[in-house]
Every structure is written in C-alpha cells, then in structure tokens.
C-alpha cells in the first residue's frame, strides 16, 4: 500500500499543477465552462483517490471545494475573483498536507479550517456538510456451515422480464447467496411461454431459495442490491437457531404463508384428506412448482433442525489420555509398516499390490491425522490459570497489571501444552517482576499506571507461535552486557548487536535477578526456559525496546510424535531434516567452491549463506566426489546451509527416541525407521549450528 500512497502523492502533485494553470486561465476567462470542468475533475480525483489511499484530511478538505465547483458547473454560481484566490490558496494547503504525510510538517492547519469555512459560505445551507460515510458496504462473509446462531431465510427472487437489459446475470447472484450458508434452491418456470412465444432476451424464471446462514438479513438483501429495481425480492426469516424439533410446518401452512394460497382455500381442501399438496395441484389451486418449492423448504428446515439435534446428542465423550497416547503410537507404527509395504510393492511391480499399498498409504495418513487431531487441545486451558498468577503476584509486589490473552482457541498437542506450562509461568513471572515497573515509576515516564502483559497464541504453518509481551521498562542492554562480561560469558571487547546482547540472558550462568526476589529469582534462569522449549523442538527469541517493553516469542511444533521431514543421504547413510526448518535446496557446484576460496560460504539469490559440511561433522567417509547439495534452513533468525550428498525427498517421519545411552548426543534429536527397516537419524539443526559456532 505504500507504493500506492507514493503514486497518489505523485498524481496529486501533477493534478495540483494542472489545477493552478486552469485557475489562472479561469481568472482571465471566468465563463469558460471547459476550464471549470477541468478544475472540478481535478478536485474530484484528489478527493476520491485521497479517501482511498488514507489521505482522509485531504479528502475532507477538498470535498467542500468540489461541491462549490459542481455548483459553478451547473450554472447556479459564477466564478468570482474571491473564489479563485481562495482555491489557489487551497492548492497550497493540499500541497502542505501532502508534504506532512511524507514526514514534513503541515505549517498552518488552522488555515485549512478557515478555508473550509470560507468555501462553505458559497454553499446553500444544506450542502456544506462533510461527506457521509459510504452508504453501501458489501459485507464479505465467511463461508462454511451454519453455526449455532444460524438463521433460515426464505427468499423469493422474481426478476422482471428486462433483467438482462443492463447486463445482469442472475446466476452469480444465486451462487453468491449459496456461498453464504446451506442453501436449497427451486427454480420456478411457470411463466415460461411456448417456444414460439419466447423472447430469448427476456427473463422468465424465478427462484425460491431457502438459506440457512449465520449472516443477518441485511447481508442477504445486499446480494440483490443491484437488481432491487429490476425484480421482486422477498426475504423472510422463517427459522431461528435454537429450535431442534425436527417437525416443521405442514405444506399447506407454508403455501398460505407465502401467499401462494388462500387460508380458506386451504381449509376447504383440508376436509378430511391427508395428502394435501397433490390435491391442491389437482384442483388447480397452486402450481406444481409452488408446491415443489414448499416441499423443499419443509425438507430444508427439517434437515437443519435434525442436524442441531444430532449435534446436541453427540457433543463429547471423555477418554483417558493413555488410551489416546497408545492410539497415536499405533498410528505411528502403522505409518512405518505402510512405508515398508509401499517399498515392497514398488520393488515387486505388481500393479495390484501397488494399488493396495496406495490405499493403505491413504488410510494410514488419514488415521494418523485423525489420531493426532484428537490429542490437540486448545491452549486456553493453560492461559486461564495465568490470570490468577498475575493477579496474586502483582498484588504481592504492589504493581498493577492486567493480563490480556488472545488466541485461546489455538490447538496444540496435549504433551506440548503440558510441557509448556512451566516455561510460560517463568516468563510471566519475569515480566511481572522485572518487566513492568511500579505504578509511580510508570506514571513518571508518561505510561498508564496499570501495566499490561499480553499472552498470545497463533498458528503459523506447522508451528504455533506464542508471544508474551509486556509494556514495561524493556531490557537494559548496558547492564546485561556488563553482567555478561563480569561472568565471563563474553569478552570485554566483543562486538555484539543489541539483539545478540538481549539473547545473552538465555545463556547458562546468566542470572537475571538484580536482587533475588521471591518471585523470579529462584535459581531458574532463562536458560532453563530455553532448553525446555528446545527440548520440544521449539525456539525462543527475545526482542526488547527500552522504555516500551519486552516481547518473548516461542515457536513450537504442533506435535511431537510425527513430523514432516526431508530425507537426505550422506555417504549412504540416511538423515532426516525437519521440513519446517527447510527453506530451499540448491546444488553446491565446483564454481561455488572455487569462488568461496576455501571458506564455507555459498551464494544463494544474492545472499551469502554459511554452510556446515555434515560429512565432516559426523566424520563419515569421503564419497565419490560427485556434486553435493546444500539444504538451506532457517535456524532462529539466520539462514544456515547443510551440505549433503543427495536430497531424496519428503518423508513422513515417526519420531522414536534414542535410548538413554545417547541422550547426551548433541545435534541428533531422535531417529525414525524407514520403509526398508533401516534407521535414519533426525537432525537437530539448532544444536548443530550452535556446535559449529563454538568451533
């Protein structure tokens, strides 16, 4: 949108130049209507586009001037010397406002108001007002099934014969209506004449539609806003949300309600006969199409009510969590076996076997997704207890703090949520203790006395991002640096960016508390938070602005049991790189190697990326020396390449823990079993990068 703004500014300057020329021309020749038209159009465009691109001040200012020139154009007013002088001055005001939006200063905003009033005096009393908000707002609706507060409308859309004459096609309208919710449509063709009498350019059809949606009546009517004059439109609310009794009105009642049938006619017909509908048609009281529409309505509403009833019955059941864990484990095993089966089928080549293997693959993928889905819980369950924590602790420390939460509905694996609780408690304690200042300190620095901690969760691809931000004092960069030097964590002359210094608070051995308080100085530092999160295959990031607060961002995978991985090979060994970290794969050519002069750097799309030779890291044998590939990954903020022999492809990775023996191995986060029974190690890109940086 910024380039759009720039474009508007450019255009406005051009128009102002035209405007000045035209005004001077008009001064010489006040009766020249063509010049008046030019002035009007220039003002009109400046105003119209101004409002579009966020220059509301300019739009409001030009509105009055435009109205004045419209009167001149219509001949109800003549151009005077005074008007031209005022307009020229107005041009300067607009220029000044344009400049102000570019970081300049609007020199005399008071004059703008005076000018607006001066122009207003040219106008008859009722036309001086500023533009009203646009009357037509087309709501863009969310699609999807109707929710609990769903409403059912009956819509009759009967276009006039000449509907097509202004280019209207009724089909997209009906499609738009259909997209609002669940819709039953009946086309009424009663007026359709014999072929010989048919005018192909006339519209003979009408539609009855029964729509169940959570949108209001206006949204439904809005669909037909362009054809209001060209058709008869009837929208009626016939059923509201809560009703679950699947018994809906009788057909006869519907017909009477819609005006297709008289109540007395109905009563006459009802004398002791059960199948009312067909009888009425036979008697010529209603047409077959009207009856059809009524029957569809009946069915639609009955269906909706039935659905609601069902939803109430099977809302939820409770299951012990070990059962779910077992289910997920089994699904994981099944994926492994299925990979084996697929491989055998591919080797065997029998098309029948391949077919079965593919079916098993599809089913096991569905089963996997489903069983993982069952374990997902909304994170809001943990958020709730933090409210209490904040309340109690802030009272204890004499601070005033509110906790604002967002994204409670974000779903995460149950295990992740459980293991996330402690780190979150710690982070919130930190914000309360060190982040938010005492009320009098806050007020002295111009902030509201009451501090705010914001806890927010949201999905981002295969990850969940949780942020804890406070509007407190922010991190004291110098103090952190000083402490880090004292503790020997960095050299006194180390060149570090502000961000790198902030990240130091998560280094082991860095105690955060200036003075140990009962709240956060419990010997557990940010380094523990960091290692907890990393154990969940997540990452932690700190950003802070002095005086306005600190934000901690946690990025976590959705689940721990199965991930999408990128399968690569090095010296005939297979490894899995978590796909969520992978940015792209490129070849590492001899040219690249030469250009880098022995440094481990590769140029990808004009970016220099350092890389790690995994073969060297793992001490594997030298291969045939064929072309290697670099998998570019995003580790924290930076991009790091990993050199492998070959990228094989995407792989559903069922994560198995390494035994106790290998618990301390850095750079490997687990293992997985491949289709052929071989084991592939899952790489921990974070640890591998840290390791390389230490050397």
């Amino acid at each position: 949108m910024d380039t759009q703004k720039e474009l508007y500014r450019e255009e406005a300057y051009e128009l102002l130049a035209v405007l000045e020329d035209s005004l001077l021309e008009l001064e010489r020749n006040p009766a020249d209507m063509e010049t008046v038209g030019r002035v009007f159009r220039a003002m009109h465009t400046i105003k119209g586009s101004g409002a579009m691109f966020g220059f509301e001040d300019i739009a409001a200012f030009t509105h009055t001037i435009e109205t004045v020139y419209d009167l001149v154009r219509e001949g109800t007013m003549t151009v005077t010397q005074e008007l031209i002088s005022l307009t020229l001055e107005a041009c300067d005001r607009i220029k000044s406002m344009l400049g102000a939006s570019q970081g300049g200063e609007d020199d005399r905003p008071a004059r703008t108001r005076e000018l607006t009033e001066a122009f207003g005096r040219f106008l008859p009393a009722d036309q001086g007002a500023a533009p009203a908000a646009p009357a037509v707002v087309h709501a863009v609706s969310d699609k999807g099934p109707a929710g609990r507060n769903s409403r059912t409308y009956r819509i009759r859309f009967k276009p006039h014969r000449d509907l097509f004459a202004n280019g209207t096609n009724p089909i997209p309208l009906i499609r738009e209506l259909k997209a609002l919710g669940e819709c039953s449509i009946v086309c009424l063709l009663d007026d359709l004449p014999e072929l010989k009498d048919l005018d192909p350019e006339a519209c003979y059809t009408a539609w009855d539609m029964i729509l169940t949606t959570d949108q209001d009546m206006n949204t439904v009517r809005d669909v037909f806003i362009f054809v209001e004059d060209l058709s008869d439109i009837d929208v009626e609310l016939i059923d509201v949300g809560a009703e679950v009794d699947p018994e809906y009105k009788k057909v006869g009642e519907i017909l009477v309600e819609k005006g297709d049938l008289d109540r007395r006619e109905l009563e006459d017909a009802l004398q002791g006969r059960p199948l009312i509908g067909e009888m009425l048609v036979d008697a010529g009281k209603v047409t077959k199409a009207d009856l059809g529409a009524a029957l569809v309505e009946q069915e639609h509403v009955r269906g909706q009510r039935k659905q609601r009833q069902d939803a109430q019955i099977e809302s939820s059941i409770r299951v012990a969590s070990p059962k779910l864990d077992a289910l997920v484990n089994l699904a994981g095993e099944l994926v492994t076996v299925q990979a084996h089966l697929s491989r055998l089928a591919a080797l065997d080549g029998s098309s029948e076997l391949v077919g079965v293997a593919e079916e098993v693959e599809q089913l096991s993928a569905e089963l996997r997704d489903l069983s993982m889905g069952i374990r997902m819980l909304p994170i809001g369950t943990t958020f709730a207890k933090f409210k209490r924590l904040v309340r109690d602790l802030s009272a204890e420390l004499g601070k005033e703090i509110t906790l604002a939460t967002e994204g409670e509905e974000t779903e995460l694996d149950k295990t992740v949520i459980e293991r996330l609780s402690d780190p979150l408690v710690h982070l919130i304690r930190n914000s309360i203790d060190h982040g938010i200042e005492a009320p009098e300190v806050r007020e002295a620095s111009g902030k509201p006395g009451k501090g705010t901690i914001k806890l927010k969760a949201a999905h981002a691809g295969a990850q969940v991002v949780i942020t804890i931000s406070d509007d407190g004092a922010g991190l004291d960069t110098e103090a952190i640096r000083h402490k880090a030097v004292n503790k020997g964590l960095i050299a006194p002359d180390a060149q570090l960016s502000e961000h790198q210094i902030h990240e130091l608070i998560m280094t082991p051995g860095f105690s955060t508390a200036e003075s140990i308080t009962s709240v956060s100085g419990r010997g557990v530092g940010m380094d523990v938070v960091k290692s907890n999160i990393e154990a969940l295959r997540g990452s932690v990031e700190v950003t802070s602005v002095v005086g306005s607060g600190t934000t901690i961002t946690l990025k976590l995978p959705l689940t721990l049991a199965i991930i999408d991985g990128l399968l690569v090979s090095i010296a005939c060994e297979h490894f899995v790189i978590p796909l969520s970290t992978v940015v792209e794969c490129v070849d590492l050519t001899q040219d690249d190697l030469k250009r880098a002069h022995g440094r481990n750097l590769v140029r990808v799309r004009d970016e220099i990326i350092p890389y790690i030779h995994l073969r060297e890291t793992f001490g594997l044998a030298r291969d045939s020396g064929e072309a290697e590939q670099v998998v570019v990954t995003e580790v924290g903020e930076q991009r790091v390449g990993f050199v492998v022999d070959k990228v094989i492809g995407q792989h559903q990775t069922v994560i198995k823990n390494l035994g106790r023996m290998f618990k301390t191995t850095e750079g490997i986060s687990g293992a997985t079993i491949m289709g052929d029974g071989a084991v592939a190690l899952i790489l921990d890109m974070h640890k591998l990068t840290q390791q390389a940086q230490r050397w």
Partner: protein
Amino acid sequence: MSGMILSVDDSKSMRQLVSFTLQKEGYQVVEAVDGREALAKVKEVAVNMVITDLNMPNMDGIELIRTLRADPAFKFVPIVMLTTENTADKKDAGKNAGATGWIVKPFKPEQLVAVVKRLLG
C-alpha cells in the same frame, strides 16, 4: 474464474488499485484513461466487464455506459460505475444509462472483488 476487465478512470492511482486488486484474484485487466480511449480499447480487446469512473475528461462515464449499451456486442456485458457522490441523481443517471452495478468510493479492495464476483461469477 478468469475474465477480461476494462478499468476506465482518469486517475492513475485508481486504475492501478483496481488492476492490482483484480489481477491478484486472477482476472486480466486493461486500462483506459477516459470514455473515448475506452471505446477504442474495446475494439481491440474483447472484455467481459467494464468498471468505469463517472467524472472524466473527453467522454464521461455516463456517456460511455450509454454508448456501450447501444452496441449489440455490449448488450449483456456487466458495467460497474465508481461513484463518489452519495447523491442519488448521479447513480440514477448511471442506472438509466444501463449500468449494472455501482461501487461507492472510498471502497476497500475486498468490496471491489465482491462486486466483480457478484456480476461476473
């Protein structure tokens, strides 16, 4: 759904906003600066829809709509007018000339898309 849309406006920034918004939705867009150029453009390119401003030099939007509607090839082509005036007379003049729909400026990009979808499907 793709389609060729003619955007007529004497403001470059407006034309660009319309083009940018509709191209993102997969429509193709040709531009014209006024009614006269629009009439020349429709002879070169077959368009499925026209979106036009009303106040333009040389030939204004009302005149353009009237001329297009009189052309048998444009009898059923949807034409949308962009209006800033909330006053009914301009809108009525456009409707009488044969406009299919209208959008009141300022509008949000999604409103434009909604109207195009409503008329073009």
